[in-house]
């Protein structure tokens, strides 16, 4: 049951234990689509983080005032508003980045993680707690995108954040910047985290 107390779990839940990408497997569309370079992954992660933070805060603030029957519509309007804001801001910051991210900025509105957080969490807890949780979730999402983006960029282009790592004779693994590469790398990370989790559980079981 959700109470109003803020614990370290409020924050760390989203980063590790319930990581939206690696544990809950939410918002897979941007995760697979825009992680072909680190900078795209970072921009997408930060954009999602911003939308998540502001919508969680607002939803939590007005949670006692919204009739239950219209809450989903209200949440979506709030989320869509912030997504539109992000859309304009990114265009204003860099058109190249905007073109690279394509339709996925607008599609943040359809990221089930954000509506899910608003409905299942932010609408039930006070603003401070909602904000901290959203920060954890958003960071968890950003970190996950960076995990994918960096591996795909290093293998697929031989660069990291645009810096050449291996010299010009490096053979790029072209499949890694293509959509299948997203699945391969995501699978690899899921395998790693699942293995770590299993090992931890085994250690706990033996120490008891």
């Amino acid at each position, binding site marked *: *049951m*959700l109470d109003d107390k803020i614990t370290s779990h409020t924050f760390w839940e989203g980063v590790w234990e319930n990581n939206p990408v690696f544990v809950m497997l939410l918002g897979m569309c941007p995760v697979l689509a825009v992680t072909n370079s680190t900078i795209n992954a970072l921009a997408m992660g930060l954009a999602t983080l911003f939308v998540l933070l502001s919508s969680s805060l607002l939803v939590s603030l*007005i*949670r*006692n*005032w*919204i*009739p*239950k*029957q*219209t809450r989903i*519509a*209200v949440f979506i*309007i*709030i989320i*869509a*508003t912030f997504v*539109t*804001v992000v859309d*304009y*801001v990114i*265009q*204003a910051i*860099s*058109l190249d980045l905007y*073109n690279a991210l394509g339709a996925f900025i607008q599609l943040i509105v359809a990221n089930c993680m954000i509506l899910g957080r608003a*409905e*299942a969490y932010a*609408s*039930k807890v006070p603003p401070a707690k909602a904000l901290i949780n959203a920060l954890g979730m958003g960071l968890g999402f950003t970190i996950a995108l960076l995990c994918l983006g960096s591996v795909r960029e290093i293998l*697929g*282009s031989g660069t990291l954040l645009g810096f050449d790592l291996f010299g010009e004779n490096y053979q*790029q693994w*072209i499949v890694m*910047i*293509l959509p299948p590469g997203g699945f391969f790398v995501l699978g690899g990370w899921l395998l790693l985290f699942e293995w770590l989790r299993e090992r931890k559980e085994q250690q706990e079981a033996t120490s008891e």
Partner: protein
Amino acid sequence: MTDTQTTGQPLEKPSSLRMIVSLTLVSVLSGMAVVMVYLYTRPIIDENKRLAIEAAVLTVIPDSAGFVPFELEDNTLRPATDSPGKGQLFYAGYDQQGQLIGLAAPANAQGYADKVYIIYGYRFDCECITGVKVIKHAETPGLGDKVITDKDFVANFDALDARVAADGSALRNRIVTVKHGTKSNPWEVDAISGATITSRAIGRALDIGAGLLLPQVMKFRQQLEDHQP
């Protein structure tokens, strides 16, 4: 998830009025927020777009000092406005003295994955295409996108012959893409080995784009020269 204690909602159905009011209020506030952000970012975004076009035009006609957008529609030439019509848009480039030296125009053709969008530069003195910049593409990284980086391929457009035929109806020689290493005429594009489809797309975009635009532009050359940036 219908827990009433945590959401703080009363069990009984709220009045329709309250639902309408809350939705309306949220929508109005959201709308206002979006409009404010739009008003604030619009000039910056427009400036970004203008800079992007300027940079692209300057790369394809490097020695131009300024350019003016024109639109050619139904055999009439007019300066392009913010609301472009259905006509062909192009940018006339002028040097320091205000002399017309060339033009830049967008073109596109079907590539391997999707359409390849380019902007090409044309110079009036050599009657040739002097530069091609790929604006947008979805070609295979490492293969198709070599058309941007491959030095030999880019060198095709140092001076690609695009003379207009004597009767002014079309190009004298259609621009064609030929197999790697077999370029023998100045109007041929030497394809990249292994990226033939994308190379052909660029050649075709030039052939269609320049083939339609240049003969028409020639009719308005005086008008363009009189126009000072």
